[in-house]
Every structure is written in structure tokens, then in C-alpha cells.
């Protein structure tokens, strides 16, 4: 069998704000095979976002990886030089956030923001970049791509902004996409559209997806595997069917019971 694209082993992230020491992520291990999706579930503060930032080595100040390895495509990301890490971020592993309005630059046309993502990593001419921007906007199903590229973020709806974020994330054809609560801020119908889009792109680009969410509904729709985080630790992981149908850990059960309408299953 192929080696998994991402293997996180015994990852521990500690925040040191003297005299306090907080273990945000505690001995976390999981792996994501190529083209598969791992759902990382947990409540706010459980360490799921910090795990993602740890993988990309984008931890906020005071935080550092004390032990563990992050194997991606055969390299251990924790030992790469910062310049090598720059080559990974955005190009090999991309990140999309919950709030596209915060992540996007309000003073820049969205087309420019997408082409910026392209030109940071590759030498491409302006015309090539422009053509690629339109191609990407079409890939994320934004109608009238040529006109929309000239819009500023505030001129787009929430769902459209999230599509722009996805276009930026996919600009360099990454093999792993980390999506941190990508649909939490959206209306139900828009959430369904964005999830459908992610599913489609995942198949087209053979993307692996690390999907961070607190909504088991989103997990059931998207994930192949699930890891449940609680207070910095993974308390249970397994295939999505196993976790949803026979959760073993009491915490997983309590999370599932909190989903309105869980009794339908």
C-alpha cells in the first residue's frame, strides 16, 4: 500500500507564557492517505486548530512543537529550514479559514489576490497568471469569472468569498488542503454548496483534506476518517462509519448527542 501523504506522530505543542505552561496539543498521532479526508472534531479550545497550525509551523508566538514528527510526502516538516517550509506552505499544503472576510485583503481585487498566490511560488508572466486566475474562479464555480476577478471582497457574498479563498488555496495545486471550519459562518444552503464544491475539487485534483469542524453533520458528509479531540488529545479515531455508529468514547457520544436530530440515525 502507498504511504500516507501526511503522517503526524506524537505531536506535542506547548505554549509557554511564564510562569504558565499550557499543553495545547498533547501527543497527537494520525495519518491521511492520498485523496482521503480526515475530519478533526472537537469543541473550541480542544486544540484542533493548533494542530493545523503546528503542521504548517505557523504557531502564534509562545507556541512551539516540543516533540513529534510531521511526515509529509516523505519529509519531516518539523526539521525543515524556514526557507524550505516557505516552499511547502501554500504550494504543497494550503489552508482555508472560517472567516474569508478576515483572511482576504479588503483593499485588493480578488483576482490580484489569487494571482499573488501564484506568483509567490512560481515565475509566471502576467498574462499567464491572469488566464490561470479566470480558470481557478471557474473551477470554484464563480459565474462571470472575468468580471468577478475585478471585485473587492466586500462586493461578494459570504459563499462567494469562501470560493475565492478556495481558489487561492488551490492556485498552486497543493496535495493537502487544511480547511478550518470552512462553512461554519455560512447559511445552510451555502454551506451545502461549498461542501459539494470541496467534494468535487477533491476528486478532480486528488486532494487530501484535513477538515476541522465542530459539526458532525459536516463530518458525516465529507470525511473518510474521523479523529475526536478533547483537551489537546485525540480520544478516539477511526473510520467515519465506525465513529458515527459505534462511538466508544463517552466524549464522542456526548458530542454526537449534541447534534440536533442525532436520533434520526
Amino acid at each position, binding site marked *: 500500500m502507498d504511504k500516507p501523504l501526511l503522517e503526524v506522530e506524537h505531536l506535542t505543542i506547548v505554549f509557554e507564557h511564564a510562569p504558565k505552561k499550557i499543553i495545547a496539543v498533547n501527543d497527537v498521532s494520525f495519518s491521511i492517505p492520498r485523496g482521503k479526508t480526515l475530519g478533526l472534531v472537537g469543541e473550541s479550545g480542544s486544540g484542533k486548530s493548533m494542530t493545523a497550525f503546528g503542521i504548517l509551523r505557523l504557531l502564534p508566538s509562545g507556541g512551539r512543537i516540543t516533540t513529534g514528527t510531521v511526515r509529509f510526502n516523505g519529509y519531516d516538516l518539523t526539521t525543515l529550514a524556514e526557507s524550505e517550509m516557505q516552499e511547502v506552505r501554500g504550494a504543497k499544503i494550503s489552508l482555508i479559514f472560517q472567516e474569508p472576510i478576515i483572511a482576504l485583503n479588503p483593499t485588493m481585487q480578488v483576482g490580484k489576490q489569487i494571482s499573488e498566490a501564484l506568483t509567490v511560488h512560481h515565475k509566471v508572466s502576467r498574462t499567464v497568471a491572469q488566464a490561470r486566475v479566470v480558470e481557478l474562479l471557474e473551477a470554484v464555480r464563480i459565474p462571470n469569472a472575468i468580471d468577478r476577478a475585478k471585485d473587492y471582497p466586500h462586493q461578494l457574498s459570504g459563499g462567494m468569498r469562501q470560493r475565492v479563498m478556495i481558489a487561492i488555496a488551490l492556485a498552486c495545486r497543493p496535495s493537502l488542503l487544511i480547511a478550518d471550519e470552512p462553512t461554519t459562518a455560512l447559511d*445552510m444552503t451555502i454551506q451545502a454548496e461549498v461542501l459539494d464544491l470541496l467534494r468535487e475539487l477533491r476528486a478532480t485534483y486528488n486532494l487530501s483534506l484535513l477538515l476541522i469542524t465542530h459539526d458532525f453533520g459536516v463530518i458525516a458528509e465529507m470525511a473518510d476518517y474521523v479523529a475526536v479531540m478533547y483537551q489537546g488529545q485525540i480520544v478516539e479515531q477511526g473510520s467515519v462509519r465506525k465513529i458515527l455508529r459505534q462511538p466508544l468514547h463517552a466524549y464522542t457520544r456526548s458530542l454526537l448527542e449534541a447534534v440536533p*436530530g442525532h436520533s434520526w440515525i
Partner: protein
Amino acid sequence: MPVLEVHNLVKHFIRPQGFWKKADVIRAVDGISFTIEEGEMFGLVGESGSGKSTTGRCILRLLEPTTGKVMFKGENVLDFSPERMRQARREMQIVFQDPVSSLNPRMRASAIVEEPLVIHNLGSRDSRYNRVQELFQLVGLNPDHLLRYPHQFSGGQRQRLGIARALALNPAFIIADEAVSALDMSIQAQIINLLIDLQRQLNLTYLFIAHDLRLVEHICTRVAVMYLGRIVEMGKTNVLFQASRHPYTQALLSAVPSLDPDSPRKRINLDPMSFNKDAPLRKISDSHWAAI
């Protein structure tokens, strides 16, 4: 007798377009009617921009409606003088979505919950203090935290604080405007259970405004679905969820994630051309209306 009757409520916002252009009229709420019976949890669902929050604010006259009638316990609150309205608000309260922006960061928790009592000039300092302690217990907050500031509470606790403030004046009717949408799912469940407990204990009537259909299906007796300022479908919750008639309701329901990976949802795309947006609500059965 119903606690609340809304008749043909209209709220238009006028957006000036400069000197040369004609002003834009935004029909946020465009002629809606519904009634809420005593002790009921009535759900109002729709997506951002559908007018559901505007409706809630118009009922409390936090926004002045353009036309229409809002009958609360048989009286039209839109005819009330400002002083009479102030008195009426003792009985009608609202819990907002975002407890961070709806709680004054520079006031201590006890002062936040006490403020309605102070404004309405109720009780002595001591009796108010006792009432605040009582309210803290009622909503499941630790009375040891009376002197904390909002930022020292978690999201769920802050929402409990907002609920305690809403309950301070012993209201009969509460509008919960997306009161749990910003919370984690497990915290959502706790707050929902609190609202239901309080409903039983205090015989409250709720208008529950939400965009998450799963919540509404769980807790509301009846539901109205809003789309572009109008109610497109209304009825008993189970009827509406099992036999929805309006294309918009159907599209909305089809977007709800399924918890079974083996029978995924099949999303229905809404074709806005496929139905008449001006169709009036029509009776389908005794407990079901749809604008088709």
C-alpha cells in the same frame, strides 16, 4: 388568546442613492402575519437577509415598522406612547446572537443583569442584589462569579448572562434571535435545554429565530419559513418538515447535512424562476400554509 399576533408587518429601508438618483427601497419585511400562542416555541427560519431578525426587532420596536400591527396580549404595541412601550418591554425581551457585542465589556456581570431592574426602578438595592443572585442560579451560573467581567466568561456562560438579563423583569415573551448560532454544538445543546427548562418553569412564550433547521425541528412546535421578506410556508413543525410544499422550504431542507454517510443528502437547487414570489399564503391543511 394568542400572546402575539403580527398582522401584515412591513419594514422598508430607504437607501439614498445621491442627489440625482432615485432612492432605493429595500423591502426587508414585506407584509408578514403570524400568531404565537401562550407557552409556545415558535420558530422563524430563513437565511441571512430574509428579514427574520428585522421582524424580531420590529416586534419590540427596536426598529420602527413601516406599517402593520403587532398585537401583544390584545393591544397594538405600535400605538403605544414611548412611556407605555417602555413598560411593555418589561414583558417582552430579547436575547441576541453575539453575547460579546451585546454585553457591555466594562460592566460587571452583576451590574449587567441588574441593569433592567435599575432602569425600571424596581426594588431596593438589597432586593435587586438578591434577585440577581437568584437569576444567576436560574440560568446555571455560579453566583461566585457575580463580580466578573464578560470577557472572563466562556461563550456559553456569556449567553447565559444574556438570558439572565432578559429574565430579570419576569417577561412573558422572549425573542431568541440566533441565540445559539455562535456556539459550539455541545454548548448549543446546553443553552437550548436551559431555554426549554425556563419555558416550563416560568411559562414563557418564545419566538425562536434561527437559520439552523435542525435546531428548529427539535424544539419548536410551529415554524414559519421566511424568504426575501415574506413567509413562504408556515405550519406545525412535523408537518412542515415531512410534507413541505414550497420550493424554497424544500431547497432549505435538502441542504441539511445527513448524519448517515451511506445516505447522503441530495441537494435541491432553488430555481427562483420556478415559483411566484408574490403568491399569498394558502391553506393546505388546518396546520399548514404555503405560498404556492
